[in-house]
């Protein structure tokens, strides 16, 4: 087969459909400034027209190009070749946690089903819709999410423990935190959040480490939610004061 001119690197892509997969190796001539997605699209254009890959923006904003590069969950369009050790093959796998459709494309529709079960923003009656920036800072951090599902992919509760029925995953705790902390949201979400498996998370923080939007998922979404659930359902003080409360 033809060798291209320019700096040669070796790329291995996990290819196949469903559970039948194997790594396929390509020799690619790369140019300065390329990201991993450039390489993959180059392979698709020149060497393997049937290579399936999902992408849209190439600007780390659509969340489509999630993959595992050298074993690390990353956006392919945000992973520069300069940052990788090119003396060894660059290994690109699809995200592991969701069923593979073909090559680098996985079926992440489980996430959309989970999302539907979340009660949307429910404003207080006669809410004035006036609030200050400091009230909404926390919520805006959660709104940065681009739904790349890298956090869902890396979270061992889904990845290794397969708790799809009992655990909504870090991405949806991010959404729930944004709603729960919203100054105008009136829904009572804490019981549901416990049922959504918040205590299955053991705060090992992999979700935070992979988030391309730098959302502090564990510190700013999950732990505050855990604390709120404890307050609501397990607080010693509530338990002591319960007989005296008016409700």
């Amino acid at each position: 087969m033809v060798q291209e001119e320019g700096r040669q690197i070796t790329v291995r892509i996990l290819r196949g459909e469903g559970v039948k997969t194997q790594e396929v190796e390509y020799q690619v001539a790369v140019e300065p400034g390329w990201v991993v997605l450039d390489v993959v699209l180059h392979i698709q254009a020149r060497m393997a027209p049937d290579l399936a890959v999902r992408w849209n923006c190439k600007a780390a904003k659509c969340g489509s190009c999630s993959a595992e590069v050298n074993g690390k969950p990353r956006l392919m369009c945000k992973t520069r070749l300069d940052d990788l050790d090119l003396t060894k093959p660059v290994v690109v796998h699809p995200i592991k946690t969701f069923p593979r459709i073909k090559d680098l494309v996985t079926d992440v529709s489980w996430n959309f089903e989970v999302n539907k079960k979340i009660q949307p923003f429910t404003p207080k009656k006669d809410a004035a819709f006036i609030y200050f920036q400091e009230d909404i800072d926390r919520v805006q951090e959660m709104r940065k999410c681009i739904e790349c599902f890298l956090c869902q992919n890396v979270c061992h509760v889904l990845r290794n423990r397969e708790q799809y029925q009992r655990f909504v995953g870090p991405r949806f705790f991010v959404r729930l935190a944004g709603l729960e902390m919203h100054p105008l949201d009136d829904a009572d979400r804490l019981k549901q959040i416990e049922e959504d498996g918040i205590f299955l998370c053991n705060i090992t923080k992999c979700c935070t480490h992979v988030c391309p939007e730098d959302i502090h998922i564990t510190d700013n979404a999950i732990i505050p939610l855990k604390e709120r659930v404890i307050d609501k359902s397990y607080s010693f003080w509530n338990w002591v004061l319960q007989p005296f409360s008016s409700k």
Partner: protein
Amino acid sequence: MEQNIAVGKQGWLGTARRDTWWVEPLLILVGLSAFGIYSTYSAVFWDYHFEIGPYLSPFYEPLLVFDWWPFSPAILILWIPLGFRTTCYYYRGAYWRSFFANPPACAVTGWEGKNYAGEAKFPIFVLNFHRYFMYAALLLNVMLWVGAVRSYWWQGELGIGLGSIILTINAFLLMMYSLGCHSLRHLVGGKLDCFSCSSCARTRKRIWDYITRWNEHHKFWAWVSLIWVAFTDFYVRMVSSGVFNDPNTWSNFPRP
């Protein structure tokens, strides 16, 4: 050029990562074990040589000596920091990885299978009651500051020694660790939905901002305070047993 290759290792510790992902969990394993062994030995079995002159080991602060308690007085104190650190959100994440491989590192396979309850079931659920240890730990922090201030007085004479400085740094580091606590962050402001709705809420928000800043470096404070408290204990013991002479300004500083 196309060529087919078998996929790498799966299963236990299987990962396609090529970096040295095992270094951090290993360091944590060694660090926490070393501290556990030293502090148990120091607090439970080495129940002498823990004070000299104005210095008292932080493991024994405040010194509780009772007739009915035949064991080391440190045991009456140490359940507080022990419970505080064991239920601390940072340490939980750290030992779930290092001691229980749950998971060993990100995108590295540890235990697999659906039989998993995380922290959702008793007795592990108790870890979630971190806040109660936090209250006790804050109180203990005050005691440690009292101990630090006391270390500048010996027999009515104001002075300073290397030990006073070490004890002061110790109180400071433990304070910084405690003030970055997630449960404290929740208590002072995290539980509010609206920060601007009352003057009380605005004040709480201001404190919350500080705690947030310290909380971002909680791991750092957790480690330096852990190492320093062990070192402080060790230092007081070395002075107390006469291995090391504490440089200080008191002429009547006791000689062991």
